[in-house]
């Protein structure tokens, strides 16, 4: 094994790339959970975004357009979850699982003819001055636009939840849907909007996998990224800033194990591949064992069905 093959500059740069899809999905899911809805279908929405983004990019030649349609596709498929849980009052856990299964089936059906094809990917931005800085320029300022958009999105979500009136309403709906309803807020409508936002974000995250990170379509390519995004929301105890930390931490682990594999660590490739999942479990345990910081931050009505009796 030759660790000197690992270039620290490229390492940091690739951490940003590998964290972006999970970051996008996780920040969307955080908004959904803040509104009191637990959507376990992130994996299904991500893979739908991945396949739709890829197919659109192949057929139009425009990855940007692919991202846009992937976001729409994520929102549309999340709408099915919204209708079932909010209007038909189905169990959110079961419906989320169903969404994942539907998404996985739908995506491999749509993606079959596109396997093995190559697509245009997003161009790296040429940021003047910053991009030319030694070391830091290549590490932080030579990425494609989605990396920066995802960071901007985290900032926007943070500000939206903390400083805007709508953010306050969304949090109120998540903390106590009965009180919010009594005050005249449209609980179902707010939750529907949050669910669709989460779907759009997951769709973008999925498209980032198939259009930038890999960039190819393979069946089941999200490989649990959606579930990890869910874990990151818990890890972050529903705070935007910590979602960012969690996603980058996880991106770091993924890239590091890939680098170790590439550096010729031949024994136990499988043990390296499973490390992100094992570490996610360990982190979840750490967070949940610290009761003061962890679960009490969860929205009080998370996962509960709302039915207005009056």
């Amino acid at each position, binding site marked *: 094994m030759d660790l000197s093959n690992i270039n620290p500059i490229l390492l940091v740069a690739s951490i940003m790339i590998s964290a972006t899809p999970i970051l996008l999905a996780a920040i969307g899911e955080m908004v959904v959970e803040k509104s009191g809805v637990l959507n376990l279908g992130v994996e299904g929405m991500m893979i739908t975004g991945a396949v739709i983004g890829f197919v659109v990019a192949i057929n139009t030649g425009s990855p940007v357009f692919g991202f846009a349609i992937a976001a729409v596709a994520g929102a549309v498929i999340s709408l099915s979850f919204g209708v079932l849980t909010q209007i038909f009052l189905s169990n959110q856990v079961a419906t989320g699982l169903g969404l994942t299964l539907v998404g996985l*089936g739908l995506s491999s059906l749509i993606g079959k003819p596109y396997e093995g094809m190559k697509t245009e990917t997003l161009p790296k931005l040429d940021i003047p001055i910053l991009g030319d800085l030694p070391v830091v320029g290549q590490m932080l300022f030579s990425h494609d636009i989605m990396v920066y958009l995802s960071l901007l999105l985290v900032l926007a979500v943070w500000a939206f939840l903390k400083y805007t009136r709508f953010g306050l309403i969304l949090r109120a709906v998540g903390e106590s849907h009965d009180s919010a309803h009594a005050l005249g807020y449209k609980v179902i409508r707010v939750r529907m909007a949050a669910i669709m936002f989460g779907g759009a974000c997951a769709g973008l995250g999925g498209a980032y996998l198939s259009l930038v990170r890999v960039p190819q379509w393979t069946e089941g390519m999200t490989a*649990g990224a959606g579930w990890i995004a869910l874990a990151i929301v818990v890890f972050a105890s529903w705070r935007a800033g910590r979602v960012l930390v969690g996603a980058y931490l996880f991106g770091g682990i993924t890239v590091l194990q890939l680098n170790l594999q590439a550096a010729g660590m031949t024994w136990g490739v499988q043990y390296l591949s499973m490390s992100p999942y094992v570490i996610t479990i360990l982190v*979840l345990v750490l967070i949940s064992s610290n009761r003061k910081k962890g679960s009490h931050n969860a929205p009080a009505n998370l996962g509960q069905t709302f039915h207005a009796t009056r």
Partner: protein
Amino acid sequence: MIRLEKRPQPSKMWIYMTPVLAVLLTMLFGGIMFMVIGTSPIEAIRTIFWDPLFHPQFAAFSRPQLLVKAGPLILIAIGLSIGFRAGIWNIGAEGQYIIGAICGAGVGLALYPMESALILPLMIIAGALGGWAWAMIPAILKVKFGTNEILVSLMLVYVAENILASVSSGVLRNPEGMGFPGSRNLAQWSSSQNLELFAGSGMHLGVLTAFIAVILAYVLLTRHIQGYNIRLTGEAPRAARFAGVSPARTVLFCLGLAGVLAGMAGLFEVTGPAGQITIDFGSGYGFTAIIVAFLGRLHPVGILLAGLLMALTYIGGELAQLMLGVPGASIQLFQGMLLFFLLGVDVLTNFRIRVGKAEVAA
């Protein structure tokens, strides 16, 4: 205006009708899906639901397959349903299934080429223990630290898949297999083979175990205090705690039972239909069993029927792939749709649909 009015009691009729309605809706929308991908919908539906049972040419082969596929689905779904009843969401049955198969096969292969009638029972116990141990990870973490069992059990599926990849090209690899990954064939070793009990029926030990599990689960839920406690925990967690039901014990019991059954399902699969530990041994039964559990309304008898139906879609799906060139993924989508529709129409069980203006509450 259309609105929903909560029923004082769940409707008896709709409890039985909703799965039927969901199947019909799935056939309808599945038909539309097949039309979109350019297959005749009527022919596709017939190939999936009718031909495996009654086609003059294929039925003789596919009918026994029904039990072969339904066995593991039912066995796993019974375990899951008991947890779901208590509000414990074990969605990592796929991992418990894989680890059960690895542990059971490992014990068997350690004794190879000994000949003894005790080997298969020993392997079954090892498989059950393997699945149990794998399920105990989320259970203990939940009890000790309050860690979310949904996420942990699911993460462990990916860990189990990596362990599977590792052992099938490592410790369990067939030394006479010319370096190919994959273990010795356990179905061809007389001490470990899990053969059909009646020729041409598809009925192997695993299917028999599944049927026994259905009966025992029924007795547990309707006649035993532990089953009552589980139902109470799911329906009224606070009342259960006041009545002295320990939430920790319920979690350990439910996850442990699901692990045991999933582990046994894995072992029966590896000694019978699958034959060997290979890298692609995980076949998704653990996930499909979730659909089976819900389609069967978390009731043992319902799960028995749902398992047979889901097995039919598997076999019919394979037949449709072969005869009509339908992509395999469409069957996966078909099964997912079934769960979706079921959850959607379930509203009719607990709510009445009223048309008209809402009365002003007094």
